């Protein structure tokens, strides 16, 4: 009889403990949102870790943004709970004109969304040509949104796929003042650093910057055999 009493109390404590754990824990989000930042259906090249989109969800006590970082190839992904979200471009953050309209995103299981933007410039064509220890890039750019003027065009060389303003072994630039006609191809030449020459290949990338915007818009990195 007495033993039974103990057993019961132990059992009830055990049950409470087990139940208690279940109650407190939230399940982790399982749905995924993937997408790309596009212009005319083409994903844009960006700086790795440079550009951020924000997701907002109304209707809950905690109203705080979910930052979504965009990869350098213009793609992004986020793991979320099912629900309705608003996707917003962070003002002044990317190399495109501000747009305060939000994009409705409905996530159930998974969702894919293309975020159309209005870039200041796009790189329509580029080619790399190696000449001895020199690398020459020929670039055509086109202005899309005309509210900001061109500041500079840069060529970056790097050892890995991640090549941009912050990660490069060598870089050369031409300022807007030296570019007379945007319809003509722009040529940039630089020396291939010895550290890259010994590898047998390098990655090259073009960056174009508009005045008053922090981020460049990039071409997709291209492997150049040496």
């Amino acid at each position, binding site marked *: 009889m007495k033993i039974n009493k103990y057993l019961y109390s132990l059992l009830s404590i055990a049950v409470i403990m087990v139940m208690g754990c279940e109650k407190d824990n939230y399940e982790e989000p399982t749905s995924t949102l993937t997408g790309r930042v596009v212009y005319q259906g083409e994903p844009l090249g960006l700086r790795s*870790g440079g550009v951020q989109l924000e997701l907002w969800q109304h209707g809950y006590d905690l*109203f*705080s*943004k979910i930052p979504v970082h965009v990869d350098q190839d213009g793609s992004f992904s986020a793991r979320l709970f099912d629900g309705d979200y608003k996707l917003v471009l*962070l*003002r*002044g*953050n990317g190399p495109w004109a501000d747009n305060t309209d939000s994009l409705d995103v409905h996530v159930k299981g998974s969702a894919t969304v293309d975020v159309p933007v209005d870039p200041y410039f796009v790189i329509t064509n580029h080619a790399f040509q190696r000449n001895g220890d020199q690398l020459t890039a020929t670039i055509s750019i086109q202005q899309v949104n005309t509210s*900001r*003027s061109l*500041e500079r065009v840069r060529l970056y060389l790097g050892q890995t796929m991640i090549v941009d*303003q*912050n*990660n*490069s072994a*060598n*870089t050369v630039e031409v300022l807007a003042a030296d570019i007379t006609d945007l319809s003509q191809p722009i040529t940039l030449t630089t020396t291939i650093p010895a550290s890259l020459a010994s590898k047998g290949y390098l990655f090259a990338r073009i960056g174009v910057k508009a*005045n*008053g*915007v*922090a981020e460049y818009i990039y071409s997709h990195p291209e492997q150049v055999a040496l």
Partner: protein
Amino acid sequence: MNAMKRIYQLAILGVLSLTFTSCTKDWLERTPKNIILEEQVWNDPKQITSLLANYYDRLPTDMGLTDQNHNSIDDNQERQAQWRRMADYDDAMWSGSTNEDGRNNIVNYPFDRWRVWNYSLIRDINLALEHIETYGVDLNAEEKTSFLAELRFLRAYNYFELVKRMGGVPLVTTQLIYDYSGDPSYMQAARAKEEEVYDFIASEVDAIKDQLGNDGSQTRANKYTALALKSRAMLYAGSLAKYNNAMGGPITTAGGEVGIPASRAQEYYEKSLAASQEIINSGAYALYQNNPDLGENFYDAIVRKTGNSEVIFAWDFLSSKDKRHGFAYDNIPRSIREDNLSSSNITPSLNLVERYEYLDGSSGELKIRTADNSDFIYYDEVADVFANKDARLYGTVIYPGASFKGLTVQMQAGVLVWNASSNSYQTIEGADLGATWGGEDYPNGDGKLLTAAGGPHRSIMEVSNTGFYLRKYVDSGPGTSTRGIRSDVWWVWFRLGEIYLNATEAALELGRDADAAGYLSTLRERAGFGEHSVTAATITMERVRNERRVELAFEDHRVWDLKRWRIAHEVWNGSSNNPDAVVYALYPYRVVRPGDATRDGKYVFVKMVAPRFRAPRFFQMGNYYSSIDQSVINNNPKIVRNPFH
């Protein structure tokens, strides 16, 4: 039996009621022993002073000499004073515990890095202002005016700290009381324009400067403290008006919360110059020149508390009252530390050292290679390479071979051994500090010093990684670098040296080149330069900016200066190819080259990126104004966000 009981009960009841009634009168009218009433506080100058001490202690700064100490309410609310942040820019790096190596690897500055939203302090000050008026009936008129002015100074100072970080903020000057109606919207103030906040600071200073008491005090606000605030704030406003609009794309918001019209620059510079001139011409302060050794003199100018005519306003500490800090414990050079832990955390960069000019006025790059870059320049003593430099270098930085506390801080990274067959030097560095080049490890060695006890060393923590140690603000008193004694050196908010630089910059911006050159030359004379070392013909904005960097290093100016000149994003652009964004080190080596008397045993210097430094400094456009916390915006929908966030 029953009757007896009845009588007893009645008797007891009677006694009880007597006790109650007799007490009632005093009981409810006693003064509480555990609460201080408003009437008591606001009529007692001593208690008001105690409160003021608390408010002074809560003023925000990016650096300071303490660790963050007011984080109990919430992160946005209270001040950020954190000496460790001295390691986060380009004047220094972190050589302390590897736990904080993140300071050498700041991939980018977070958008909330400089965020302050301390309306808790503003509210306390507003409350005090109103309560002195309401309750302070026994204060005499003079005391009352002076206290009110002092509180308004603190509020103006705090609004300056807010506006330089956040842009325009809501200007709240009265206490807000909720009426429980269910609608708090009448309490939600929108952000003022950026220029309105600067105008508020200027008008507050004008209103209170002649009401402030505390004449001669260096730790409480007096007339000149208020003018110093105006001098600095108006200079910031002027340069924001000028340089923000000179950018390719000015940083603005539609409502003017960020962005000052360019047309106001002139007016702000005039106001700054007038305030600076009033301080300089008053004769109340003088540049510190008590020590004939110019280097030591510059150190004393900031650190010495007795007979210091230069410091206008400081955040004081006092060991005898147990108000101390561990800045000396954490930053004394490794080889002369008195405790068994810490030391050497903040180590100045070669970038900063090379900004100090030579006394002949030539640029400060150290002469370590021959003109054709074919060989090192050989020095007899390690300290010789720093000869004939601006005395402020000695006063700010402990360089190899300099002395501190009467002890020489010897530094040597290793030896360079000449290899005749390959026609080059072989670099040998010790695994431990104080190692000799000899013994079992180095059978070919000569038994002399390999790596000095003070480093520099590439990987050991708590020894300089850059080849330099910090002198400014490190206490030279005996035992002050131990945890038992600690330091009571003060933190300088304002000193006359800065006022001279403010006057220089404002005058130059206003086109009064001769005046500007005059102020700058006076300041430079104290550092060992000749009379009129800068003239109207040779003064440039570049030069003035450089002077600010070397004179005011580690006094919490660099980042704010770069911000208001709108060049922070170019100087710290996150590119490893940019020498300004990377922290450089200078390592001294002893040359071993037997048979070559002009080189053997001499010292040479190697410049390199500091080995423990990882990510180039990266200041983004969104850093010019810190982000406002989402909870603040949620609570007050009238608050607009800053650009780029």
